[in-house]
């Protein structure tokens, strides 16, 4: 998944973005304060150390006396201990902030993802959302934790150094500080270029991963097409590009530090010359020159840190914006406050207040438009009796899936209303409706874990016996028991260790476990072997019994067993009735039937046109 990480970068740092993010990280303000405190301590002690050496040289070494050495040693040791303690705590708390922010963003993000409507998922691919929740969250944690560390240290260290130097000799300090502007300019310039080149390298690296993955996944097809050479040519183009930009990036880094140090050495050289003059003239002590020397040599470090932090912030800007846009999207399907008060929300249902359900469904003048304005349903009306089976037929994109999605309240009508048992379903909670609907998807999705847990997914409290009863009802038990660990067999990620047919059977068991009053089936088109096919047929029959059902059917037997077949074309019901009635009508259904299902007719078609 790593290579799906898309990388957009904006040019400027927008303070507003970071301010908005603050509300998600404000719980860490105590730790922030601690980190800042420890960094300040560390920076100040870093500035004091050269002064200690200066004192040592001027007080003991030059006059050659050991008098007062013990307190000096004690003070020196104490300073070192303070430093070490500060280091320990800043690393500890900065890491805590890093992991904590990462944790908090993910927790909030996940909860939000459970509430966002399907219209959101239509726009956002899974890979995109994964990147927001994994790498972006991690990078923001790092930026907040360690960016703060670098920034506080650099600012305090730089100011304290300047103060200390100015107190000792302001004329010398002024001259030395002249080197700061060019140092800063070069640092910022290089940090930006280095980060940009790292980004290029990472992007290309993603492409290599993607391409290598494709080389493995497509190897069989590649063989049958004899495309080995061409594939290799394409791959080696990327790797040679990778080599070129990696070397460029490394060279950029290799030139940066020596350059900065060389610029800094102009100040050092000046200090050496001027300091020596002052020492010879007796205007400055040897210890002081030594201390100044340490300060000057280390001046580039805070500058480098500040430049690096700002470059990093700029890089994080895009990540921060993307995460924010996830956290701040308001779900457009939401229960009203009144509904929530009565029936509870998605996370805290008040099941004691939930009314029972019979399963009567009404569409009243329902119109549905997608976000982009495309109208799918127009003034759609439908009354479905309790226990009735409705099969939906029609061309792709005619609105069959939309009807099903509206029933499940994955989408809500743009106009009109949908009533369950005579009441607008928006007057009940989403969870109430969804707890009463059984749903089988075209591509059945299972969660990794044992089969038992997958069936139990419909109702976490179901007993083992209830799970087995559901499996038996849809004829799934036979194959389950044939598996090595029976009900405890791990189905693998996405259920991939099972065949498509087996996954379908389990998804049927799951759908009926809760004995839902309304059942929605989006029938699979993919072929399974004939024996499994028969099992699934029987599972469907069992499942439909006594429930209000909506089926997007691809199998003739399923469609024929329906009480009513609706032909949907361009968002409207064009034909409605039983199989026999629609056949007599000679309309769309008749054509569909003859083309798609009827053997003899298709043979005739081939013969006549061949």
């Amino acid at each position: 998944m790593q290579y799906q990480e898309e990388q957009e970068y904006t040019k400027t740092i927008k303070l507003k973005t970071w301010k908005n993010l603050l509300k998600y990280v404000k719980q860490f303000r105590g730790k922030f304060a601690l980190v800042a405190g420890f960094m300040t301590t560390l920076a100040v002690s870093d500035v004091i150390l050269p002064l200690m050496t200066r004192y040592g040289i001027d007080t003991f070494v030059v006059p050659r006396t050991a008098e007062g050495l013990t307190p000096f040693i004690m003070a020196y040791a104490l300073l070192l201990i303070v430093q070490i303690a500060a280091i320990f705590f800043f690393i500890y708390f900065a890491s805590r902030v890093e992991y904590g922010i990462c944790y908090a963003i993910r927790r909030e993000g996940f909860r939000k993802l459970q509430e966002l409507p399907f219209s959101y998922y239509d726009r956002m691919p899974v890979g995109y959302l994964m990147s927001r929740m994994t790498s972006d969250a991690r990078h923001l944690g790092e930026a907040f934790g360690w960016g703060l560390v670098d920034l506080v240290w650099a600012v305090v260290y730089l100011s304290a150094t300047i103060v200390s130097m100015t107190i000792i000799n302001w004329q010398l300090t002024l001259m030395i500080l002249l080197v700061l502007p060019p140092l800063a300019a070069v640092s910022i310039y290089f940090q930006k270029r280095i980060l940009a080149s790292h980004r290029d390298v990472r992007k290309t690296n993603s492409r290599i991963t993607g391409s290598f993955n494709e080389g493995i996944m497509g190897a069989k097809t590649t063989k049958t097409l004899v495309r080995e050479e061409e594939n290799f040519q394409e791959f080696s183009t990327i790797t040679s590009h990778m080599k070129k930009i990696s070397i460029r990036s490394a060279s950029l880094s290799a030139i940066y530090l020596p350059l900065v140090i060389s610029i800094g050495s102009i100040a050092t050289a000046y200090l050496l010359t001027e300091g020596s003059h002052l020492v010879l003239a007796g205007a400055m002590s040897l210890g002081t020159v030594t201390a100044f020397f340490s300060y000057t040599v280390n001046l580039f470090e805070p500058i480098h840190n500040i430049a690096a932090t700002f470059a990093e912030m700029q890089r994080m800007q895009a990540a921060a914006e993307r995460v924010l846009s996830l956290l701040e999207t308001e779900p457009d399907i939401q229960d009203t406050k009144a509904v929530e008060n009565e029936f509870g929300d998605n996370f805290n249902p008040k099941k004691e207040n939930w009314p029972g359900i019979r399963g009567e469904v009404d569409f009243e003048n329902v119109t549905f438009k997608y976000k982009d304005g495309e109208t799918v349903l127009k003034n759609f009306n439908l009354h479905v009796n309790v226990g009735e089976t409705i099969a939906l037929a029609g061309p792709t994109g005619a609105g069959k899936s939309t009807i099903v999605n509206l029933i499940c309240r994955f989408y809500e009508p743009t106009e009109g209303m949908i009533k369950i048992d005579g009441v607008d379903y928006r007057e009940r909670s989403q969870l109430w409706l969804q707890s009463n609907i059984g749903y089988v998807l075209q591509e059945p999705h299972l969660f990794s874990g044992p089969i038992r847990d997958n069936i139990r997914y419909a109702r976490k409290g179901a007993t083992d016996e209830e799970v087995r009863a559901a499996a038996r009802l849809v004829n799934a038990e036979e194959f389950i028991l044939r598996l090595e660990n029976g009900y405890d067999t791990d189905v693998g990620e996405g259920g991939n260790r099972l065949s498509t047919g087996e996954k379908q059977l389990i998804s049927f068991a799951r759908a009926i476990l809760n004995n839902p009053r309304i059942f929605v089936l989006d029938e699979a088109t993919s072929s399974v072997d004939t024996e499994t096919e028969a099992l699934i047929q029987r599972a469907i029959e069992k499942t439909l019994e006594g429930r209000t059902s909506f089926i997007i059917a691809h199998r003739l037997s399923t469609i024929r067993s329906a009480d009513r077949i609706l032909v949907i074309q361009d968002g409207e019901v064009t034909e409605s009735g039983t199989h026999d009635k629609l056949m007599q009508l000679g309309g769309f259904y008749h054509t569909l039937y003859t083309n798609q299902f009827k053997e003899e007719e298709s043979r005739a078609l081939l013969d006549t046109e061949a």
Partner: protein
Amino acid sequence: MEPTKKHSFAPMWRLIKRRKYYFLGAFVATALNVLIGFITPAILAELIDHYLGDKPSRLPDFVNSLIDMLGGRAFAIENLWIFGAALIAINLIKGAFSYLKGRWCAVASEDTAESLRNRLYNHVQHLPYNYHVNAQTGDLLQRGTSDVETIRRFLNVQLMSVFNSVMMIGIALSLMLPVSGTITMLSMLPLPLMLIFSWRFFGTVIKAYRNTETAEGKMSTVLQENLTGMRVVRAFGQQQSEVENFNDANQKHHQTGIRMALLDATYWTSGDLFSAAQMLIIEIACILEAVAGGITVGDMVILITYSGMLMGPTRQLGRILSDAGKSMVALERIDEVLHEPAESLDEEGIEAPLDGDIEFDHVSFSYDENQEVLRDVNFTIKSGQTVALLGATGSGKSTLIHLLQRLYEPTGGEIRIGGMPVSRIPRKHLRQRIGLVLQEPFLYSKTIKDNVAIAVREPRQAAIDVAVRDASAWEFITTSEKGYETLVGERGVTLSGGQKQRIAIARILMKANDILVFDDSLSAVDTQTDAHIRQALKRRSKGVTTIIISHRVTTLSQADKIYVLEKGRITQCGTHDELLAQGGLYARINAIQNGQEVSA
């Protein structure tokens, strides 16, 4: 992946030898960089002791005679800027070497990484079909990406760091010893402790880091499953339990993170503790020695700076030693793949015409000795005929047609095309002239147009249009927003199984085929489209021998001849009517499918 396990350095040495000049250059630049780094403190000491103070010079005689020629000590004191200029010059030269070291290292290591990636990729492409059937793709991908990265990092950073550290420690010690034996000894005291500590403890840190990564991996698996299964989550109203589930994984990762924070803090602080102890010891010892008159201020500068230069490299050495084992393991894993026997595409053979009869003569096949997939299969497909194969999953029908392209070699018997044994026909020729559409065809991360045209050199748009129409893919392609330019695959749009199959068929139709094989490759399109495609095939591929594997009676019944395969044997063959009359698997399947389809 135990960092302490012994691994041979020989394969790594072979990699290094290939770019020996760059590595050598990098080593020399590193050595010079380190050496020059020691000059600055020496100049400072000389300035303090000899010019600012009255101690004798410590410079070599030839340098001093040079200075004497210019006017000696008095001249230098008059022109103190010389020291400053020397400092700048030294930094520039050192910087130049540092740059060269970085650049040459990068060239050598990136070049190695490039060639490793290319060799691996090329090799993987040429590994036999069966290897890919059984391959653990995730593991293979890891070898081609992160294992190469581990080696690259080793060559780029770690190798030079070890050399750098050893040089640094060696030179520092040899320069410090003449100044003060005792103090040098004192400053060395923490070094071995430091080395062992950072080596050992870094191992623990790495392990904890992997735990954190594993925990994060688990968290993202929960997330991924939730996102891909969002419809199921909502349909069963399980948001609350999903949140609990995720929070659990998120919490676990957070906890490993907290542990990591503690370990990190301990590890880095302990290193600093050693440094601080060393610094304190040196500082006190120097002051005491200086007070006693044993050393000068200049000596003190030298001792303190040099011993400060020792700590960093020692710490790094310990870290690298405990991490470097990984790169040996990585290289072993890569070599393991490279040593897998590949199949050759440039073999000798006879590029025979493939439009003759196809004969299976007592063909047997097994992957291993226990399980025979095909048993004594005998039949002949007449040139230009269309035959269909029916069989349950695992009956061997896919294997049978894979043998035609020599994706596998039969373990017994012989296959002949036009009388020529296929074992004597080069694979490349066979695969180019036999159009095989797999059941789950792979589409490349390219546009639809590029995918359709992928098997031909200079595709004409007209030919693409025809192929796409014949494969019944025209409508869905042209009605989509970007049409032919739609990007598919990993980064593009997700196509349905049926759409993929149709593009795969168009792609095969683009090239010239003597034989066409469809390995259940119409399974995901509806019956009507299936019929359309077959009808188009009949029209455009007249005279091309065609083999179709299918479960659909509608499809099977159209063939000139139908073969039924059961448990690796051909149990029935004949036309639709003949097979119905015989009874058996075909008749049963027909009954089931027609049972659904008996008219109203």
